[in-house]
C-alpha cells in the first residue's frame, strides 16, 4: 500500500486555490460550457497591446535585437541545394536581450504584472534561460525572486548547463532552489508559492506568451523594411509551445498572415523526461521533443489551469534535428559568421540550414533566436559531460543517432538534414483525450480552433 505524505496530499488538494492567488488571474472567467475556453478573450483581456508591451520591454533593455542576414551560412546551405534553391537565412540575435535570451521578453511582462498587482516577490519554475530573465528583471524592479530548478540526479550529478543558469540567477540576487529529477518539482514549487505569497511567473500565463508577440512583430516589420516583403518562413525552437505561440501571434498581428510558422525540436525520442537515469544522458535540457510533443498534444498539462501556449493553433510544420547537428551548427555559426552563441538556442538554426535548401533562393527564412553562451552552456562542457556519462561521440549520419547512447556529428554539411514530425499524428494524440466525451457542437467548434481544421477532419482524426 502506498504511504501518503500528509503535507504532500494536503498541499496538492489546495492546488487551485494557491495557484489562483499567485497569478492574480481568474481563469474561471474564460471557461466555456463543455471542454473549451475562450483563448482569445484570455489573451486580450489582460490590458497589454503590442505598443504597450514594446514600451515596457524598451524600458527594460528587452527587444529590438539585431536581425542579421547569415550570408555565409546561406552560401553554405546552397552548396547542397538544387539550382535556384536555398533560401536566404536571417537570424534574430536574441542573446542581445538583458539576461541573454528571448526569455527576457516573457519575463518583462510577468515582472511588470507582479509589480502592478503589488506582489513583493516573484517565483518561477524553470531550469532554463527563463530563470535568469525573471531574476534580472525582478532585480531591476526591486522584487524578491525565487527560481526553482530540476537540477541533479540521485548521484548528485547536475547538468552543467543548469548549473550555469543557477549561477546567473544568483548573480541577479535571486534564491535558487535546486531539486532532483521528478515531477514532484510542482509540489515543492506550490509549497514555496504558498509560503511566500509571491507572484507565479508561469511560462504559460498570458503574460508569458504575450511578451513574445513583439518578437514576431519585429521580424515581420524588419524583414519588410529590409527586403520589401514578409518572410516566407519563420522557424522557432519548440519546447513548451510558448515561443512558437507568441511569435506566430506577433507575425499575424503585424500582417504577415502567409508566413509559415515552423517548429523545430532536438530529437530526444526514447529518453524519459522523469527518469533519474536518463536525466544526465541528454545534451539538451530544453527545446527537445521530450517537452515539444507532450506540450503540443496536451497544452493544459502546464502549471496554470489554461495554458496560453497552444502550438497546434499556429504550427504549419514541425521538424526535428539530432543533437549532433545542433553542435555542428553552433560551430558553423562561430566559424563562418563570427557569432559564438549557446548550443540550445541554435536548434532552429540547424533545422533552417536544411529547410532553406527546400525553399527558393528568393525566399526568406528567419531563425528567431540565439542565446548567450558561457561555462557549462557551450559545446565543450556539454559534449564532455556527455562523454563522461558514457555517451559515444562520433562522426557519421545523424539519422543513426540514438539519444542517450550516442551523439552523431554530421560527417559534413550534406548530412545535416531535418526530419519531419507528422502534425496529423499530434492532432490525433490531442483528440484521444476526448474519445469518450459526448461532444456538443460548441465543443467541436473549440476543437476546430485548437487544431485549425474543420469539423469533418476532427471527426476523421478521432476515428
Amino acid at each position, binding site marked *: 500500500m*502506498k*504511504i501518503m*505524505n500528509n503535507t*504532500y496530499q494536503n498541499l496538492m488538494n489546495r492546488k487551485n486555490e494557491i495557484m489562483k492567488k499567485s497569478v492574480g488571474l481568474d481563469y474561471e472567467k474564460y471557461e466555456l460550457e463543455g471542454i473549451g475556453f475562450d483563448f482569445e478573450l484570455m489573451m486580450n483581456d489582460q490590458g497589454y497591446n503590442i505598443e504597450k508591451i514594446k514600451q515596457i520591454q524598451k524600458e527594460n533593455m528587452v527587444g529590438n535585437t539585431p536581425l542579421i542576414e547569415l550570408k555565409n551560412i546561406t*552560401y*553554405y546551405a546552397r*552548396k547542397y541545394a538544387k539550382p535556384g534553391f536555398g533560401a536566404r537565412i536571417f537570424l534574430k540575435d536574441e542573446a542581445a536581450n538583458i539576461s541573454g535570451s528571448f526569455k527576457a521578453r516573457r519575463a518583462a511582462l510577468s515582472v511588470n504584472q507582479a509589480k502592478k498587482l503589488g506582489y513583493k*516577490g516573484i517565483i518561477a519554475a524553470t531550469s532554463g534561460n527563463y530563470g535568469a530573465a525573471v531574476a534580472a528583471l525582478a532585480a531591476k524592479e526591486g522584487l*524578491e525572486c*525565487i527560481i526553482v530548478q530540476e*537540477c*541533479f540526479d*540521485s548521484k548528485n550529478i*547536475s547538468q*552543467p548547463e543548469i*548549473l550555469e543558469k543557477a*549561477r546567473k540567477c*544568483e548573480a541577479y*540576487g535571486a*534564491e*535558487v*532552489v*535546486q*531539486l*532532483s*529529477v*521528478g*515531477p*514532484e518539482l510542482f*509540489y515543492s514549487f506550490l509549497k514555496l508559492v504558498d*509560503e*511566500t505569497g509571491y507572484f507565479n511567473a508561469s511560462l504559460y500565463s498570458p503574460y508569458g506568451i504575450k511578451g513574445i508577440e513583439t518578437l514576431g512583430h519585429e521580424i515581420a516589420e524588419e524583414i519588410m523594411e529590409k527586403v520589401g516583403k514578409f518572410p516566407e518562413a519563420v522557424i522557432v525552437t519548440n519546447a513548451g509551445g510558448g515561443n512558437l505561440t507568441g511569435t506566430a501571434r506577433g507575425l499575424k498581428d503585424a500582417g504577415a498572415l502567409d508566413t509559415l510558422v515552423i517548429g523545430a525540436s532536438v530529437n530526444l525520442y526514447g529518453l524519459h523526461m*522523469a*527518469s*533519474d*537515469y*536518463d536525466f544526465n544522458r541528454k545534451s539538451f535540457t530544453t527545446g527537445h521533443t521530450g517537452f515539444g510533443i507532450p506540450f503540443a498534444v496536451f497544452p493544459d498539462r502546464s502549471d496554470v489551469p489554461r495554458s496560453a501556449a497552444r502550438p497546434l493553433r499556429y504550427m504549419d510544420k514541425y521538424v526535428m534535428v539530432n543533437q549532433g547537428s545542433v*553542435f*555542428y551548427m553552433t*560551430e558553423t555559426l562561430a*566559424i*563562418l559568421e563570427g557569432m559564438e552563441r549557446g548550443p540550445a538556442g541554435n536548434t532552429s538554426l540547424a533545422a533552417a540550414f536544411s529547410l532553406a535548401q527546400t525553399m527558393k533562393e528568393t525566399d526568406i527564412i528567419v531563425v528567431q533566436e540565439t542565446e548567450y553562451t558561457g*561555462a*557549462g552552456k*557551450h*559545446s*565543450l*562542457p556539454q*559534449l*564532455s559531460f556527455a*562523454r*563522461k556519462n558514457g555517451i559515444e*561521440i*562520433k*562522426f557519421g549520419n545523424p539519422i543513426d543517432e540514438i539519444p542517450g547512447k550516442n551523439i552523431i*556529428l554530421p*560527417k*559534413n*554539411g*550534406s548530412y545535416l538534414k531535418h526530419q519531419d514530425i507528422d502534425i496529423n499524428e499530434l492532432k490525433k494524440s490531442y483528440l484521444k483525450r476526448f474519445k469518450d466525451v459526448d461532444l456538443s457542437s460548441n465543443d467541436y467548434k473549440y476543437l476546430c480552433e485548437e487544431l485549425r481544421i474543420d469539423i469533418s477532419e476532427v471527426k476523421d482524426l478521432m476515428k
Partner: protein
Amino acid sequence: MIDKGTYVRIRKTILKPEERSDNLPEDTKKVPFKMWIKGYLMEDSDLFDIVNIKTITGRSETGRLKEANPPYKHSYGDFIPEILTLRDIIKRDIRGENHE
C-alpha cells in the same frame, strides 16, 4: 567547525521513495526526491549536521550541511578534439574540398 553566519549549501530529502508520486519510471521511484539550497548558517555547526539556514530571500530551511562557501564548479569541461575536426570539416565544405 563552521561559524554561524557562513554562507552554506544544505541538502534535504523532501519525499522518501515510498512517498513519491505515482506514474514515475522505475529508476526514479527507487530514489528519494531531494533539494539543495543555499543560505546563511544560523548556528555554529559541523559538516553533515542537520542545520537551520536563512536563505537570500529571508526564508528558513533545514537540512544536512554539505558545503561552506559553495563554489561554482561548472566549467568549459574537458577539451573535445572532435570540435577541431568539426571546424576543419566546415572550412573544407565551404571551399568545396569535401567530395563524397
